């Protein structure tokens, strides 16, 4: 199972906690899939509000939490949000998002490196949400990140692995670094494909929460991840262009 900053997680499925029809359905999705990490956020609290109730529910899931800096567009916003999340959730893990474009929600690679450096120096364990750019990956590792989270496709699109070549290259470029495909997955087959490529885990939310039956979809993702992991470890065959019979040619009868 994946190891992030010295912590082994129980499943390669990292699951978001937003957009479910109800808290009970969210809990069911976690239980049925055995998801290994729960992602959470921090948002404005009204006077007399009860953010504690949500926190109690998340603690009840019994899995490590990964707070995010979702919605932050600047280094300053992301760093301040990370500090607030660390105090609220009692973890130094942070899913670092520095969004560079309002429509595509593409990560801002320049702000990401700067924020990662600041947070790593301050003791955070940073999980950077990034594009599949290999140069960016190297800079993030230099900044102190020990996990990388390249996107599959833009957040919430469900389009799967948009740039297979780029992701395969990134995986090959940094073979020892734990990598999570974060965002853009829509179907369990996308998750299986990520594991077949040698990625260590996937992080998703919308594909499960917005399915008609979220818990069933979560279980589907869990099974696909296991299938993909087994396939990767089984050393898959090389694709080839020409057909090659699988049934022996030797001993074929002459019947014409």
């Amino acid at each position, binding site marked *: 199972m994946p190891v992030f900053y010295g912590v082994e997680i129980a499943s390669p499925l990292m699951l*978001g*906690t*937003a*957009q*479910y029809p109800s808290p009970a359905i969210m809990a069911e999705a976690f239980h049925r899939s055995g998801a290994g990490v729960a*992602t*959470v*956020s*921090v*948002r*404005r*609290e*009204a*006077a*007399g*509000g*009860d*953010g*504690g109730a*949500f*926190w109690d529910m*998340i603690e009840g899931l019994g899995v490590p939490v990964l*707070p*995010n800096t*979702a919605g932050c567009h600047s280094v*300053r*916003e992301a760093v*301040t*949000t990370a*500090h*607030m*999340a660390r*105090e*609220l*959730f009692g973890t130094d893990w942070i899913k670092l998002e520095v969004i560079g474009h309002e429509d595509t929600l593409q990560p801002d690679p320049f702000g990401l490196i700067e924020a990662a450096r600041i947070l790593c120096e301050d003791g955070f364990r940073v999980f950077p949400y990034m594009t599949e750019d290999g140069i960016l990956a190297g800079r993030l590792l230099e900044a102190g990140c020990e996990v990388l989270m390249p996107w599959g496709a833009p*957040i919430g699109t469900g389009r799967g692995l948009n740039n297979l070549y780029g992701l395969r290259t990134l995986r090959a470029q940094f073979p020892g670094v734990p990598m999570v495909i974060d965002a853009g997955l829509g179907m369990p087959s996308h998750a299986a494909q990520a594991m077949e490529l040698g990625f260590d885990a996937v992080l*998703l*939310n*919308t594909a499960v929460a917005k399915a008609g039956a979220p818990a069933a979809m979560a279980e589907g993702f869990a099974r696909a991840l296991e299938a993909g992991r087994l396939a990767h470890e089984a050393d898959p065959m090389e694709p080839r262009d020409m057909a090659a019979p699988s049934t022996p040619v030797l001993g074929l009868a002459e019947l014409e």
Partner: protein
Amino acid sequence: MRITVNGESSQIAAEKLAAALDELGYGAARVATAVNGEFVPAAMRADHALCEGDRLEILAPRQGG
């Protein structure tokens, strides 16, 4: 003094952040605070002086992806 609390203008009598949270009705709520974009740890709220026009953000755990 008048400050902005989570984007809304608010009149408070308290001069320190911890007292302001009590006055605003947050009591013992599980919240994190930032003033003018800078994180203020819970342990420093009692001593953190607020100024006219400060922007106070009060955040709590929420769902996220």
